[in-house]
C-alpha cells in the first residue's frame, strides 16, 4: 500500500501570499485568524470524512490554490464557500491518485482471501494500543478522566438521559458539556496516537 504523500505543488505559499489570504478572510487580523482556523478545521474534516488520505495536506493545497487566485487579483465575496468549491475540485483530483483510490469492501471480497493476520503480531498491537490508552487516560486530570468516562458509559438507550443528568449535576448546559468532553476526547486521542507512533519508531 502506497502511503507516501502526494508530491508538493510547484507553487509555494509565501509570507506575502499568506498575508493576502488572511486579508481575504477579514480586514481585521484577529477576526481573519479566527475565520482561517475555522475554515481550515472544516477543510481537514471535509477531506477526512470523504475518506481520502492526507487530509491535512489536501487542506493546505486548497489554501494554496485560493492564495494563488488572490495573487492573480481575485476578490473573495464569501471565503468559506469559495474554499469549499476549491476543496471539491482538489478532492476530485486527489481521488484520481493511485494511493487515494477508494476501496469498496465487496471489491476487496471479490479478490482472493488474504492470509489471516499473524495472531502474535495482532495481539501485540492490541496490547500496545491498550497500554498507550491507559497511560494517556492516567495522565488526564482526575476530573477530566471521570467526566469523559461517565459521558461515554451509557449505551444508546440511556445515552441522552445520562448526558442530561451529567450536565445538570455539573450545572452547565448540555452543549457546553459536549464541547468539554469533545476537547478531552480529542486530547486523549492525540496522546494515544503520539504514544503509538513513538512505539513504532522505537521498534
Amino acid at each position, binding site marked *: 500500500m502506497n*502511503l507516501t504523500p502526494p508530491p508538493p505543488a510547484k507553487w509555494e505559499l509565501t509570507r506575502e501570499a499568506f498575508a493576502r489570504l488572511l486579508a481575504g478572510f477579514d480586514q481585521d487580523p484577529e477576526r481573519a485568524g479566527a475565520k482561517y482556523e475555522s475554515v481550515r478545521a472544516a477543510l481537514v474534516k471535509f477531506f477526512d470524512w470523504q*475518506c481520502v488520505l492526507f487530509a491535512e495536506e489536501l487542506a493546505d493545497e486548497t489554501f494554496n490554490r485560493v492564495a494563488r487566485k488572490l495573487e492573480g487579483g481575485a476578490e473573495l465575496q464569501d471565503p468559506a*464557500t469559495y474554499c469549499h468549491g476549491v476543496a471539491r475540485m482538489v478532492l476530485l483530483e486527489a481521488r484520481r491518485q493511485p494511493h487515494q483510490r477508494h*476501496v469498496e*469492501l465487496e471489491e*476487496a471480497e471479490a479478490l482472493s482471501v*488474504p492470509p*489471516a493476520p499473524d495472531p502474535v503480531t495482532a495481539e501485540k498491537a492490541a496490547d500496545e494500543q491498550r497500554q498507550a490508552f491507559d497511560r494517556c487516560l492516567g495522565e488526564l486530570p482526575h476530573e477530566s478522566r471521570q467526566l469523559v468516562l461517565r459521558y461515554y458509559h451509557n449505551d444508546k438507550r440511556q445515552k441522552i438521559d445520562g448526558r442530561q443528568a451529567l450536565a445538570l449535576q455539573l450545572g452547565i448546559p448540555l452543549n457546553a458539556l459536549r464541547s468539554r468532553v469533545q476537547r478531552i476526547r480529542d486530547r486523549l486521542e492525540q496522546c494515544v496516537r503520539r504514544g503509538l507512533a513513538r512505539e513504532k519508531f522505537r521498534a
Partner: protein
Amino acid sequence: MTTEANNQTHTMRHYLLGVLPESDQLALEQEFFADPDRLAQMQEVEHDLLDEYARGELAGEERQQFERHYLTTPEHRARAAFAQELLRAAVADAAEAVSQPTESVWKRFWAPWQTLQFAYGLALAAMVLLAVVGVQWLRQRANSQQEFARVETERRANQERLRALEAQIAQQRDRNAELNTELERLRAQQNPPSASGSLLSFILLSTIRGSDQQTLKLSANASQVRLRMNLDSSDVDRFRINLRPVDGGGVQTYNAVRANKTKTGTAVSVTIPASNLPNGDYILTLSAVDATGATEELDRYSFRVARQ
C-alpha cells in the same frame, strides 16, 4: 430530541456513511464550512457512530455502510480502535464504582445516633437496610460484569474484523494502482476535444474513472455547447445533469435528459447556451432518475472553460 434535531442527526449520519445524495452533501458541507457549531455537531455524530460500532449497536445496513465506507482509511480504523478502548475503560470504571461500598456515607449517617439507647433498634433497622442494599448491589454488580463481558467480546470481534479489512484493502490498493497505470496509458491514446462553429460538441471523460481535467476552448462564434457523456451500458432512459462552477456560483440543473443508444453503449447529451458557461472550472454530475423521481449519481466530469 426534537424532530428537526433528529433529522439533522440522520442527515449527518448518512453523510458520514457515504450514502447522502450529492445535493444534500453540498448543502451540509456549506453549513459546516460556514458555522463552527455545525462542524462540532458533525464531530459529535461521528463519535456517536464510532461508539455505537464499538458497542455492537450498529446493525444491518448501517453497519455494512460503516465498514464499507468509513472504515476504508487507516485514520478511521485507528479512531474505531480508540473508541473501543474508551468504551472498555468507561465500562470498567462504572463496574469499579459499583463494587466500592459507600462507607463514608454510612459513617456520617451513623455518628449522631451512636448512643446506647438507640443501639439495638438501629442495629436491627441497619441489618434490614443492609440486606436490601446488599441485594441491590449484587444485582447491579452482576449487570455491570455482564455488560463488561459483552463489550469485551464485541471489542475483540471488531478488532478481528478491522485487521481483516486492513489486509483486504492493502491488496485492493495495489491492484488499483496497476489498473490506474493501464488506464493512463489508454487515455493517452485518445484525441483531445476540438471546438469550432456555432454549435460546439464536446465529449466528456469520467473523472471518477481517472480522467484528467479537460479544457473546453470556446471560439468567439460558439453560441451553443453540446456536452456528451458515454456510458458503457444503461437500463435508465431518464437522466439529470447538475453543472456546478467550482468557485461557488449557482448550480445549473438539466432534468429529463434522454439517452441515445450507440454502437458501444449509451450516450447522454445536453446542449447548453455558450453564454451559460463563463470561463472557469466546472464539475458536472450525471445522475439516473427512476420512475419515482429518485436519483442515483452515475458519474462525474471535471472541465475548464477557456474562451479563445
